[in-house]
């Protein structure tokens, strides 16, 4: 590796540009989407406007895509079967939710949104998201450790157990402090020893609503933040997949013994994969907690939601980022489409209302797809690597050569 190739593509300014450009493009796209949403809301009569309901689904798609793409790092790349992704989501959601809720109480004495986009409140929000992600990543490290010893079904059970533990601990937390005085009285965390010998735990750190859920979190999440972070997750995971490091991750899934024999530190990389997935899972949870009209609550963070994300990864194709995104889009829209079938042309009116059976139809569609494509929609490939895309690219290249 003594000689180092230097050409136009590896000169320093170009490298910087290529390093930063995707993030910028993602940011601009997210911002455009956000402005379009704002405009649509105030011009509902216009033909170019989308119904508000659609934006709701659009935000859900973004969050689900973050969750599916990040879970893909563990389940797809390294082939470790994790069933506890919602555990990370809940940790991220509650940590960041508590930080913005009590943070706004302490800073501004109310939980109303503070400032416009990029106003003071958004910095609190971003900081809280980051903290949520980091705490989730720490939890990911702890859960990743048993993966040193366990594989397959056993790991699935451990991760499932982790998700349930998180959920059950959250149901044991205290009711929310509703006013600024209550918050300042309670303090961060206090342990008191009662006269009858029992111990009591209080403070806003553990006052996150218990089984009723955490209500009143400031609704900072909007399309801009969702899609900015969604693009960031995708770019992160894509670059990881393209790199030798990501290929080493996949080699663990392919053959752990051979990977180890080829010098891949399998245990370290497995834990690293868990930490990465948990971080983005936590960020996704944070976005979910601050989403308008959503109350984050323990019963909702049950393991069926984890199964939903696993389905997205498996359906999209283990290891394929575009597959995970496509599956997240399809599986978020599908249940909505099945509420009412009047959009299908020539369908008899009697069949329009299938909302009672929609979960059955949803399951049937999943079964059919898995029978027809057991490797998932994409396999390990990306959407631009499958045959039709390659054919199209070859055709375009030929056209360029012969003007």
């Amino acid at each position, binding site marked *: 590796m003594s000689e180092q190739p230097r050409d136009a593509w590896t000169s320093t300014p170009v*490298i910087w540009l290529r390093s930063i450009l995707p993030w910028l493009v993602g940011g601009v796209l997210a911002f455009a989407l956000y402005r379009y949403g704002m405009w649509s809301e105030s011009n509902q009569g216009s033909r170019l406007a989308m119904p508000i309901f659609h934006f709701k689904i659009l935000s859900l798609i973004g969050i689900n895509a973050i969750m599916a793409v990040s879970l893909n790092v563990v389940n797809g790349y390294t082939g470790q079967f994790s069933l506890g992704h919602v555990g990370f989501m809940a940790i991220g959601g509650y940590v960041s939710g508590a930080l913005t809720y009590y943070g706004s109480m302490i800073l501004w004495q109310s939980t109303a949104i503070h400032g416009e986009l990029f106003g003071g409140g958004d910095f609190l929000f971003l900081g809280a998201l980051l903290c949520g992600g980091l705490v989730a990543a720490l939890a990911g490290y702890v859960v990743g450790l048993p993966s040193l010893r366990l594989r397959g079904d056993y790991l699935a059970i451990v991760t499932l157990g982790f998700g349930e533990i998180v959920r059950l601990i959250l149901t044991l937390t205290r009711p929310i402090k509703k006013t600024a005085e209550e918050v300042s009285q309670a303090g961060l965390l206090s342990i008191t020893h009662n006269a009858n010998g029992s111990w009591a735990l209080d403070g806003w750190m553990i006052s996150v609503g218990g089984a009723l859920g955490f209500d009143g979190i400031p609704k900072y999440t909007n399309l801009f933040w969702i899609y900015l972070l969604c693009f960031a997750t995708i770019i992160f995971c894509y670059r990881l997949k393209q790199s030798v490091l990501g290929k080493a991750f996949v080699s663990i899934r*392919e053959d752990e013994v051979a990977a*180890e024999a080829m*010098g891949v530190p399998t245990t370290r990389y497995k834990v690293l994969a868990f930490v990465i997935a948990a971080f983005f899972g936590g960020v996704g949870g944070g976005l979910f907690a601050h989403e308008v009209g959503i109350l984050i609550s323990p019963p909702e963070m049950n393991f069926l939601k984890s199964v939903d994300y696993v389905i997205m990864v498996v359906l999209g194709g283990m290891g394929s980022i575009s597959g995970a995104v496509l599956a997240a889009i399809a599986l978020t829209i599908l249940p909505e489409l099945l509420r009412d079938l009047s959009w299908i042309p020539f369908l008899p009116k009697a069949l329009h209302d299938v909302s009672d059976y929609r979960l059955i139809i949803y399951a049937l569609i999943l079964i059919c797809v898995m029978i027809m494509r057991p490797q998932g929609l994409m*396999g390990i490939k990306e959407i631009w690597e499958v045959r039709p895309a390659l054919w199209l690219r070859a055709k375009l290249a030929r056209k360029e050569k012969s003007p």
Partner: protein
Amino acid sequence: MSEVALQARGVSISFGGLKAVSGFDLTLEKGSLQGLIGPNGAGKTTLFNLVTGVYTPSEGTIHLGSQRIDGMRPHQITRRGLARTFQNIRLFPDLRVIDNVMVAAQTHMKHGLVPTILRTGGYRREQLAIERRARELLSIFNLQGLAGEQAKNLPYGHQRRLEMARALATDPKVLLLDEPAAGMNPQEKLGLASLIAKLRKEFDLTILLIEHDMGLVMDICEQITVLDYGVVIASGPPKKIQNDPRVIEAYLGTPMTNEE
């Protein structure tokens, strides 16, 4: 002048009550080519697994050069310059041919997660260098035209060659080959013999190989160690091994004697 590349002293391991390998001694001089033979179930592959760290020996020591390697994890041993191939091919089937080699070449990679995500200049240059080296290795094994294929789509003979290319990508000093000629026809075996000789010279390798094809082993190995029931029963140059009564006994059994 004889420098020791790999040395095993009194290596033993047992699984339950079965002593799979006991009191195994081996000295590989730098640049030598040794064969390890023995009937099925003699413990040859177990021995490879002991040396490469898949199993930890219950007794004895193993040194790679001057470093003691028994008890280390396989990837740590690989980093110190010991690579292997597998008896039943163990490629990364879904990865492309070139990726198979690149994964092995990342053994000595310096850049971690953060440069990878930021795609810094150093990371890019390293990635390009790794890719170039992988392509060089593929062309040595005549696989350069198949770089973009998924490894599982290669024919058997190509897969064997890819496994050797992948092992070499870790930049080894000592290479362990587990039945490299298995499933090959006589012509391919001849090609293999000359390939091994070429690699040994070009990469300055010390090679230990397990092989059942006696013609090949006798042809290319300078020293042969014979294992039976986990115990070394003979070792020496091919000529000596061929005429050793204990070896013949291990392979063919004792002749029936009719005393009457």
